[in-house]
């Protein structure tokens, strides 16, 4: 049953050291404000799950929140490497980072199975060396046709965190645009935190096929306008491509990264996001 609360309360309540947390949003609606709250509350030893650990996880990894990363593509999209992720993997800074690595199809299937509360997902494909380094890649024979399929365990996080455009007064949440695996991550998780751009009176008049998470299927809702910035919220604000380009230099050295986190995360708050995101006219 969803509860409206502040982001500080939501994170303090739902997220504990050592948890497995899935913060989703496929280049769209990335829950940056929630990630920054997690850094401020100094959560440690987390297993971070995300198909595309881009800048948001680079920040969490560099800030020392993560012990393990479960992912399928880790880069700064369209720009290059994630320097904090690479520093953790290549040099163990600020601490070693264990990797559990899949392809997109494998992890998307795992989320799908998690939402369905099945124990595993089966799909076609030939995993190559990923199966050598990730023992979670198994195979299963179809009982009807005898075909051998690839299997991976269902992904069910302790906490799923996503950002959405709006909630209604009753605590239902609607997501528009590229919906990624947000719904699957939330429905598969034990607890969930959803940050939203705004609260509206009701969802009357929306498309009957809109992506809605009903209030009884989710946990905490925190209203954080601009909470996906510098990614974008379809219909609200655009992606700040210039920041994604700038991150390459900010994150390249440990000192410049620490200075950025200190100024823009540690000495900031969720309200700052509303000022950063510029609304689409």
């Amino acid at each position, binding site marked *: 049953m969803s509860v409206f609360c502040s982001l500080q309360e939501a994170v303090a309540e739902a997220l504990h050291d050592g948890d497995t947390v899935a913060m989703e949003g*496929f*280049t*769209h609606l990335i829950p940056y404000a929630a990630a920054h709250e997690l850094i401020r509350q100094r959560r440690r030893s987390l297993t971070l799950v995300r*198909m*595309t650990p881009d800048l948001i996880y680079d920040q969490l990894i560099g800030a020392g929140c993560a012990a393990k990363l479960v*992912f*399928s*593509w*880790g*880069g700064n*999209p*369209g*720009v290059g*490497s994630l320097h904090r*992720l*690479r520093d953790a*993997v*290549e040099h163990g800074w600020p601490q070693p980072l264990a990797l559990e*690595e*899949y*392809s*997109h*199809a*494998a992890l*998307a*299937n795992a*989320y*799908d199975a998690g939402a369905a509360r099945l124990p595993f997902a089966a*799909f*076609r*494909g*030939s*995993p*190559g*060396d*990923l199966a050598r*380094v990730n023992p979670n890649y198994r195979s299963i024979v179809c009982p009807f046709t005898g*075909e*051998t399929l690839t299997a991976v365990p269902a992904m069910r996080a302790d906490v799923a965190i996503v950002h959405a455009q709006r909630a209604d007064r009753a605590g239902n949440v609607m997501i528009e*645009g*590229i*919906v*990624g*695996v947000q*719904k*699957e991550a939330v429905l598969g998780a034990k607890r969930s935190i959803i940050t939203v751009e705004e609260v509206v009176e009701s969802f009357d008049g929306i498309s009957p096929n809109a*992506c809605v998470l009903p209030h009884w299927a989710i946990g905490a809702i925190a209203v954080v306008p601009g909470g996906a910035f510098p990614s*974008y919220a*379809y219909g609200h604000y*655009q*992606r*700040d*491509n*210039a*920041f*994604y*380009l*700038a991150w390459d230099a900010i994150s390249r050295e440990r000192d410049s990264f620490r200075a950025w986190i200190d100024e823009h995360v540690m000495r900031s708050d969720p309200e700052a996001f509303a000022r950063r995101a*510029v609304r689409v006219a």
Partner: protein
Amino acid sequence: MTVAAARCVSSRDVCFVGIGLPSAACNLARLTHAPGITLIYESGTIGARPTVLPLSIGDGELCATALTTVPVPEFFRYWLQSGRITVGFLGGAQIDRFANLNTTVVGTYEAPTVRLPGAGGAPEMAAHCQQVFIVMPQSRRAFVDRLDFLTTRGHGAGGEDRERLGLRTAGPSKVITDLCVIEPDRQTRELTVTSLHPGVTRDRVQAATGWPVRFAPDVGETAAPSEHELTVLRHLRLETENAHKAKEPA
């Protein structure tokens, strides 16, 4: 290279597009000889018609111009795995003579010299697209005798390896580089140069390849880009560059 890649697709194709060169090639094709092509990005945007090239596969532009946008698990399960996508474009940090690709690590997995982004959509794309075109600049660093990590299976160990593994699609049918076009041999599936770009010699291709290169008996010359293709491509790149510049103060 972009123009040669663009020419590989037609209006009838349903095309899985990655960011960077593949996206440039597919959109160039859409704006020139293949106006009816369907572009699908792995963010789930089906039938996207972007006016500028997206910086990421999930840009709002893709969703706003798409016919429909589906969840990512649906994209991989219903649309890709089902074999409905006719063409996929791939690239990588390393490729071997059987068009297998590495996008995971340089060095060992446990202690890599370079940690690369990882698999993304590539392994299942190579498995399920009816055919795959690989586009990457040719150099000894990239065209290696032995991959450090096999992220995405092309023709595996060669011969009928794909069929043995239960793969039902053609796999990589062309590798397009800045020097030439390379295609798998019908029997051995080893990559064989079939066309050299204007002015490129066999020696130059060999010097940029980490294994002894095979050439087809009738190596042709790739047709040079037309004025129209170059104009459209330059315009697209310029528009893209302008669109991605700072929109608002940081």
